[in-house]
Each structure stands twice: as structure tokens, then as C-alpha cells.
């Protein structure tokens, strides 16, 4: 009975066997995914972080180096702490931090090591090193952070920090991993690719408890880490330090350039911060403080701030007019005071006197001749031709566009051209009278301190400049490669430069705290109008180069709300140039150094004016409230 049922049962045995073989064929032979997963299980990449490139000054003095720090690692499984309070005291952390970090580590893995405390400094590590053996499950992993030889150049150097999610998403190289350090702002960002070097990876096989079991494929896939390239900057570290000392307590910037090479000797901005504050364990805490400071400590005024050009721009007007031939170097032009307000008297002016006295009405006439050249009988059409010519010429001096200095964030400034006015005056019926305030560097013109320093270099060079830059060469494996630059000419000729320089020489002589003993300087003062008409004064501007016959330094100084350019900015520039050229400051009755360090640039009348403006504002507010 029921004998046939044996076949059903035997059939079931075979059927299940077949089902297994088919399923196994699918996951073992067809699906390659499991092979990858198996490799991911056993392979632990061990990253060797490369040595980040060093940064030197122009004299091969070290500015930025790598400082050893220690990440305290933990394997939660092995942790047995008898006295948590003692442990926390040793590390200098709160008990809540301890618990929080332990929880994070445990969530990651109980058996694999993870970072418990990041970036313990060398000194702190020295304190805990001998006692760490008492705490099983903890060990240190050495790394490096940036160290600085001087508390200067914060905004120019930039800083390094952990790569952000956004940067990772934007990274097209595929090099960066979460947790990597990356240069943020300044030279660290600009030269990130060179500085960072190349990470090395060795692939280890690990067992399920994360314990190493030898190399994967005998190290065939391993790579060696390549240290980063060193940067040789153009900065003169001593001069930079001096410049930053002079700027302390003020708001402003100093840019000094070696005119013959375009090398930036000094790039200082104030207020600023100390670079070491954004390195190491305190980064998070300090960054919040620095970034939220109302004084904008991360804003590098030297190349990011734009100001109305002011009187220093008169030199550009003169140079363009001479190059265009609308005035002659010795041509005497009678100037009355009917045009615009003027500090200079009426009378006959040649171009040198125009610069010396900074005559507004003289340059009004110069601008008129530039713009209204009677190339077209129609006044409006003629103005268009003239302004186009003028704007092109000005842009050749590096204005209106970034000069291309090798740190991020450079502002363009603004040179208003035909398109610009066409956008404002939709029916295009603008003419010379609309644009005449440009003649004395006012109106819409905006320039950066860097562009003005470059202007000083152009005049020093008698008609050309070299792109200002902060890095002149790269050092790799002991060999130095220098960057190459070309001269950029700003006009057709250069024989008219002596006239301008003569005016600037005389201008310097007339500025009390500008001249340097035994060295002839050429300079131009300026006052950049403060857009905000509140209780503060205009910005003090000064541009100069020295020595006149063999220029070694060209400089621009901006001190905000310090009034007339002949005082704060001129004195600061004079000191920086003297320090560079002589190596010391000649003491005399002018007490320039004390004057700048004290920072009290205003006279009684200016102080009264500030007081008056303050009261006016208060009255207005009171009125509005009624």
C-alpha cells in the first residue's frame, strides 16, 4: 500500500537539493557583490598622512611648520577605568565630555579603535604620557597640525581644518576623504594641492575583532605617502612683523611691493587674529569667536576691501593724459576755483605742481580734455568715446579687475565704463558732466589697497608692473623652482614719468612725517571718502615708493577713520619703508614711531567735529522717537 509515495518523498529530496544548488549558483557564481563585501570586511586601509609643505619667507626664514599633536584613541572593549574622575583630570576634560566621547566611540565599534580626544598638544601629551599605561584600551596616534614661528600673517597664510561636507561634495579630484585636513583661505587654500602632498595607504587584513592579520595581496595595492611642496614666499617676515605692530589697534592695511619683481614684501591687515588660534585642539572654540567678531577678523582688507580711490588716483589721471598727449609735461594751465571745491590755490599749474598741490580743479581740466576730445560733434557721443578711452587706459593699470594675487578673495574694485553708465542712465543721455567727479578719484571708482600699492610700483618702474604675488618659488626634494612673471606695460610711452615723480617728490617733502633721512621718496596722499556719513572720519590713504632713483619698495597704506592721508597713513608708510631700506628707524623730533603706536591721529578740530556729528545723530534719533 502507498508504495508510490516513496517517489514523492525521494523527489522532495532531489528538489530541495536542486533549489539549494540554484540559489548557491546565484550568490556564488552570478553575484559578484559578495566578493566585494568580503574584501570590505577584511581590508582595513591604514592611512599615512603626508607631511604638509612648509612655508618660508623671502629670506628662507621659517613661517609655518608642522607641530606634532596626538590623537587619543580608544578601543571601548578594552577600557577598564578604576577612577573616571582622575582620568578626566589627567586629560583636563569634563566628565560629561568623557561619557559623550565614550558613547560615540562605542557606537562606532566596540572592537575597532576610534578617536577619543583629538589633537592633544605636545606639552599636554608630555604630562599624560607616563600615566597613560594605567588606562587599558587607550593609546595615542601621532599627527601634525600647523605651527607658526610668529604671531603674524594670519589672514595671508590662512588655516587648515577638517574638510567640510560641502567641500567633499564639490571635490572633483576624488582625493579627499571625510576627516582629511584641507587648507582654508589664504596660501593654505591657494596652494592646497601642492602643500597637501599625497596620502599613502597600506591595506591590512583584519579579523573580526579588528586585529591585524598581515598585508592584503602582499601590499601590491599599497602606496607611499608623498610629502607636500614647501612654499617660498615673497614676504619679509621681520618687516611684516613690524608693519603689523604699527597697525595694532587700528583698522586698515599695508601692502608693500618690490616694484622690480612684483614680490609682495608686506601684506598686513588689522584687526586680525593670531594664526595659532586656528590650529590644534582649540580650533572649534576659537573659530566661533573669531568668525563672529563684529570687527571682521577674517576679512583681509589688503585685497578684499574696496575704497573710493581719492587723491592718489590723480597720478593715474596725469599719466593717462600725458600718454594720450592731451597735456604736455611742461604745459602751464591756468586753474581758477570755479569748478569744484579745492584746497589748492588758483593759478598756473604744470602736471608736477598739480600733483604736488593735489589741485582738484587742475585734474578736472585734465579729465575734461581726456573725455571731451571733440572726435564727434555730438557732446553725448563724444563723451562716450572719451570715457571708453579713459576706462580702457585706467584698467591697464590693474584697476577694475583682480590683479591675480595668489590668495583667494581678491576684490575687483570698480572702474565705471560706458556700459556701467548705460545701465544707470537707461536712455543713455549722460555726458562729461555726469562723470567729472571721476577726475579726482571720487564718484563710482573703487580700488583695493593692493591695487594702489601696485600703482606705486608702476610709477616706481616708470610704466610697467609685474603681477603682485606672495609665493615666488616652490621647494621639493631640495630643489627650488621659481615662478616666472612678465612685465605688464600700462601705456604707450614713459618719458613723461619724471614730471609725475617730481610732483610726488615735492608732495612727500611737504608731508611732515613722510620724509626719511638720506633717502628720497615720492608719494601721494589721499583721503578716501567714508561712505557712512556718521560720527567717523574719512579714511587716511598714502601711496609711496623709495628710493626715487632706484626703487626698492612701493607701498600703500590705508588707515580707516583716521582723517587726512598726510598723518596716519603717511607716517606708517614712512616707517615701513625706512625699516625695509635701513633696517632701523632714525629718531628725530617727529617721533613718528610713538605717533603711530599711540594711534591718536586726530587734532582738536577733528575731535570736535566727531563730537558734533555724534550729538547731531543723537538729536536725530531723539527727534524720530518723538
Amino acid at each position, binding site marked *: 500500500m502507498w508504495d508510490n509515495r516513496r517517489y514523492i518523498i525521494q523527489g522532495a*529530496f532531489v528538489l530541495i537539493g536542486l533549489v539549494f544548488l540554484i540559489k548557491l549558483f546565484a550568490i556564488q557564481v552570478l553575484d559578484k557583490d559578495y566578493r566585494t563585501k568580503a574584501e570590505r570586511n577584511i581590508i582595513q586601509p591604514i592611512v599615512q598622512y603626508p607631511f604638509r609643505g612648509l612655508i618660508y619667507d623671502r629670506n628662507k626664514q621659517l613661517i609655518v611648520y608642522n607641530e606634532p599633536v596626538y590623537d587619543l584613541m580608544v578601543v571601548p572593549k578594552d577600557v577598564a577605568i578604576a577612577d573616571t574622575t582622575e582620568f578626566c583630570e589627567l586629560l583636563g576634560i569634563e566628565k560629561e565630555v568623557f561619557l559623550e566621547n565614550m558613547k560615540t566611540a562605542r557606537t562606532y565599534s566596540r572592537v575597532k579603535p576610534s578617536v577619543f580626544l583629538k589633537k592633544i598638544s605636545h606639552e599636554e601629551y608630555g604630562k599624560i604620557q607616563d600615566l597613560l599605561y594605567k588606562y587599558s584600551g587607550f593609546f595615542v596616534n601621532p599627527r601634525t597640525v600647523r605651527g607658526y614661528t610668529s604671531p603674524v600673517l594670519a589672514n595671508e597664510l590662512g588655516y587648515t581644518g577638517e574638510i567640510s561636507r560641502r567641500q567633499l561634495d564639490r571635490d572633483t579630484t576624488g582625493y579627499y576623504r571625510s576627516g582629511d585636513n584641507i587648507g582654508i583661505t589664504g596660501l593654505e587654500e591657494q596652494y592646497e594641492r601642492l602643500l597637501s602632498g599625497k596620502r599613502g595607504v597600506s591595506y591590512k587584513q583584519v579579523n573580526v575583532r579588528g586585529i591585524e592579520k598581515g598585508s592584503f595581496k602582499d601590499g601590491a595595492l599599497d602606496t607611499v605617502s608623498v610629502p607636500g611642496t614647501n612654499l617660498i614666499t615673497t614676504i619679509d617676515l621681520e618687516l611684516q612683523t613690524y608693519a603689523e605692530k604699527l597697525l595694532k589697534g587700528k583698522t586698515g592695511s599695508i601692502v608693500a611691493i618690490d616694484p622690480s619683481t612684483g614680490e609682495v614684501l608686506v601684506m598686513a591687515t588689522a584687526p586680525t587674529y593670531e594664526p595659532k588660534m586656528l590650529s590644534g585642539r582649540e580650533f572649534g572654540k576659537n573659530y566661533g569667536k573669531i568668525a563672529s567678531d563684529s570687527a571682521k577678523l577674517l576679512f583681509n582688507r589688503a585685497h578684499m576691501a574696496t575704497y573710493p580711490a581719492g587723491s592718489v588716483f590723480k597720478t593715474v589721471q596725469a599719466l593717462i593724459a600725458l600718454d594720450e598727449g592731451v597735456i604736455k609735461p611742461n604745459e602751464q594751465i591756468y586753474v581758477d576755483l570755479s569748478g569744484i571745491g579745492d584746497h589748492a590755490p588758483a593759478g598756473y599749474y604744470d602736471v608736477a605742481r598739480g600733483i604736488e598741490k593735489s589741485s582738484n580743479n587742475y585734474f578736472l581740466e585734465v579729465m575734461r580734455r581726456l573725455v571731451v576730445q571733440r572726435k564727434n560733434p555730438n557732446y553725448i557721443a563724444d563723451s562716450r568715446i572719451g570715457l571708453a578711452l579713459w576706462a580702457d587706459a585706467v584698467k591697464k593699470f590693474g584697476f577694475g579687475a583682480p590683479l591675480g594675487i595668489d590668495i583667494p578673495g581678491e576684490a575687483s574694485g570698480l572702474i565705471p565704463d560706458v556700459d556701467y553708465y548705460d545701465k544707470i542712465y537707461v536712455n543713455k543721455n549722460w555726458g562729461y558732466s555726469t562723470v567729472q567727479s571721476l577726475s579726482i578719484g571720487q564718484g563710482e571708482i573703487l580700488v583695493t589697497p593692493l591695487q594702489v600699492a601696485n600703482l606705486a610700483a608702476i610709477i616706481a618702474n616708470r610704466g610697467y608692473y609685474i603681477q603682485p604675488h606672495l609665493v615666488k618659488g616652490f621647494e621639493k626634494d631640495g630643489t627650488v623652482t621659481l615662478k616666472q612673471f612678465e612685465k605688464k606695460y600700462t601705456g604707450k610711452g614713459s618719458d613723461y614719468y619724471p614730471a609725475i615723480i617730481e610732483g610726488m617728490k615735492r608732495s612727500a617733502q611737504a608731508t611732515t612725517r613722510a620724509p626719511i633721512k638720506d633717502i628720497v621718496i615720492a608719494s601721494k596722499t589721499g583721503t578716501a571718502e567714508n561712505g557712512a556719513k556718521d560720527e567717523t572720519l574719512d579714511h587716511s590713504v598714502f601711496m609711496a615708493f623709495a628710493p626715487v632713483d632706484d626703487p626698492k619698495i612701493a607701498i600703500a597704506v590705508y588707515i580707516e577713520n583716521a582723517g587726512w592721508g598726510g598723518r596716519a597713513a603717511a607716517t606708517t608708510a614712512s616707517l615701513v619703508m625706512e625699516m625695509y631700506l635701513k633696517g632701523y628707524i632714525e629718531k628725530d623730533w617727529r617721533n613718528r614711531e610713538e605717533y603711530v603706536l599711540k594711534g591718536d591721529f586726530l587734532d582738536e578740530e577733528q575731535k570736535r567735529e566727531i563730537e558734533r556729528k555724534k550729538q547731531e545723530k543723537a538729536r536725530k534719533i531723539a527727534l524720530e522717537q518723538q
Partner: protein
Amino acid sequence: MRRRDSILKNLDWPIVFLYIILVVMGWFNIFASVYDPETAFNIFDVSLSSGRQLLFIGGSVILIIVILLMDFRIYESFAPYLYALFILLLMAVLVFGAKINGARAWFDLGIFRLQPSEFTKLATALLLARYISNNNVKLTEFKHQLMAFFIIFLPVGFIMLQPDLGSSLVYFAFVLPLFREGLPAIYLIVAGSFALLGVLTLLLPITIIIIIVLVVGIIWILVTSRSVSNIVITSLLALLSVGFSYGFGYAFENLVPKYQKDRILVIFDSNSVDPLGAGYNLNQSKIAIGSGGFSGKGFLEGTQTKYGYVPEQSTDFIFSTLAEEHGWLGSFVVIALFVFLMIRITVIAERQKFKFARFYGYSVAAIIFFHFTINIAMTIGLFPVVGIPLPFFSYGGSSLWSFTIMLFVLLKMDMHRTQVLSR
């Protein structure tokens, strides 16, 4: 007068041969699963599972000799006592047993541990065989079916109390020998239908289940008969099915502990469950198996195996060792060996003159079949992870000895198949 024959006379060598191959392969794979390239332990080292398994294999040889020397008739006569003894042991283990992995299933005897539920299968098979072999017992009759189910499910009740789900499931294997001896097929069909309905309940919303049941019911009525009684019975069955599905779904959702629920859900969707939690065993087991490829990574070369990624690898997940190191080919060989073994056992069962031995033979085949099916299915994600060993392969004395005894008791009966069974 009896002639003293060799104790090996009439022994079924193909089965012995298959047994030896499986046991030896198991032993090598146990070594592979505990092998650590950095320590100098060898396969004989008793501090490793492989060394201890060799002792268990030695014990098996002794057991085999004892079985072959013993009278083959005692199994039928002693079946009730043996059954009673093991029921007592199952009760005792609930009180005196050691709790391991959450189940009180083991007696801790110091040098080794004993799992009575492994041996109870043998006692149950013998008693059931004895009951069925009674000529008055007809499996087509309800009261006899009831008695048979009682014999099966009494030990299951105690095992569930341990609780040991995997070992309990194996007792459903007795459905196969009962089926062979005339249990109506409807039992298998109904059980199969409810199992299918249960799986569907976990996968589909209740509304879809209702639609499926309705459609199947209507088709059934259309193709069979449109008599009133057929329509009423079908409707009742449909209602029962929907009720079952609803009740099962509710019970699964609310009564089953989360870890068991996850073990089931992970089969359908490996992403639905935490891969480091409930899904971990299955996930790692599949990675090990899947990475084996067609021909495997080679003996002692399985990275997932030797670096310890698969938990319980020498016992319940021993198949993953084989599949990683010997690939699809190795799996093919072992699966084929099992299928041959099981079919060979049914062939032996069929040549028995007496119902007792035949039923017992089918029971052995069915128990091996259930272990084989559930164990491999769980390592490749076709069945929830329930801890039951792969016969002859997995590390462990209780498992190896109980299967050895089961198999060789059958062979002993087979050797005397021509002799008259006297009571």
C-alpha cells in the same frame, strides 16, 4: 542453532561509505572554521573544536560497534521505555539544565554537555514506528492519527519550553514517514497551504490576501462542482484562511519577540533589519558563501572563515566554511552526498519486510532531510536563523552521536531484514 556470522555481514556499505565521507569532511571543515594562521595548533589539538570532534568521532566508532553487537530486537520492545526515559530527561533538563544562549537545553556533565532533545528524536521515531506497525492501526482513521500526533508533539511541547525552536521544527519531519504509511495527503496540502499563507501574510497587506483567497475559492468552485455543500465548505475554508492570516499577522506583530521577528523579516529584505544586529549572522554567512565563487578560495584560505567573521561557524554555520573555501563545486558535492544518503536510506527502508523497520528508516531519512534543509536554507537566507546542526558535519558530540546511533540502528535492523522478528 545459530551460526556465528561476522558482525559486519549484510552491512550496507554504500551508507557506511557516505557516512564516513560526510563525517571526515565535516571534521576538516570544523578545523578550517577554527583555524588561525598565527597559532601553531594542528587539527588534532584537543584545545580546538577539531580535536574534540575527533574524540567525538572516536566515540561514534565505539557506539557503532556496540550497536552492531547488540540484539536488533530490543529497539522495538524497548521503545516505550526509551521514549518514557527521554520524556523524563526533557522534563529534568528544564530544571537541572544549564542555560546556554537563552535555552535550557543542555545537561552540563563537566567534561562535556549533553542535549537530550537530540536523542529524543530517536526514541520518538522508535515508539512511533512501533505504534504504526500494529496491524490494527490505520493512518486513515482519525483516532490513530491523533495518537500518532500525540507521540510526536509531547516531546515538542517540552522542547518549546526550553525554548528551542529549531529542534522543535525537526519533529515535523515525522509527517514524511506517516505520509509514506498512508496519512492522507490532505494533511500535507493543508499544512503547506497554511505555511504559504503565513509567508504571504508577512509579505503582503491583508487586503491582497483576501483578494487572493477569494479568487482561489471562486476558481475552486468553478472547476469542481457548484453544489451547495461545496460552496458552503469552500466559503468556510476561505473564511478560515482569512482569519488565520489575520490572526497570524497579529500574533507575529504583537507576540513574537523582536529579535525573532527580525530574523524572519531579514530573509525577505536584507536591508530592513540592522546588518549589525539581527541580520548579522545571515549577512556574514552570505558574504562568506557568496565570496567563495565557483571553485572556492581553497582549504584554510577562506578569509571570512579564518578571520572569524561568521558567528557559530563550526556548529550551525559550518556550511558557510565549506561554501567559502570550496565554492559552488564543494557545495555541489556535499549536497549531492546528502541527497544520495537520504535516497539510499529510503531504498533500505523499502526493502524491510516489516512495517516497524520501514517506518523507522523513513523517519531517519526525514530527520536528516529536515536538518539538512533547514540548516542550509538558513545559511543562504531561505529560512530564518534557527539553531539546528547540519548532520554529521556540524561540531558537537550530541548531534554527531544521535545521528550516528539513528543511522546505525537502521543498518543493524537492515542486516537482519531476512530474520523473523519475534515478539
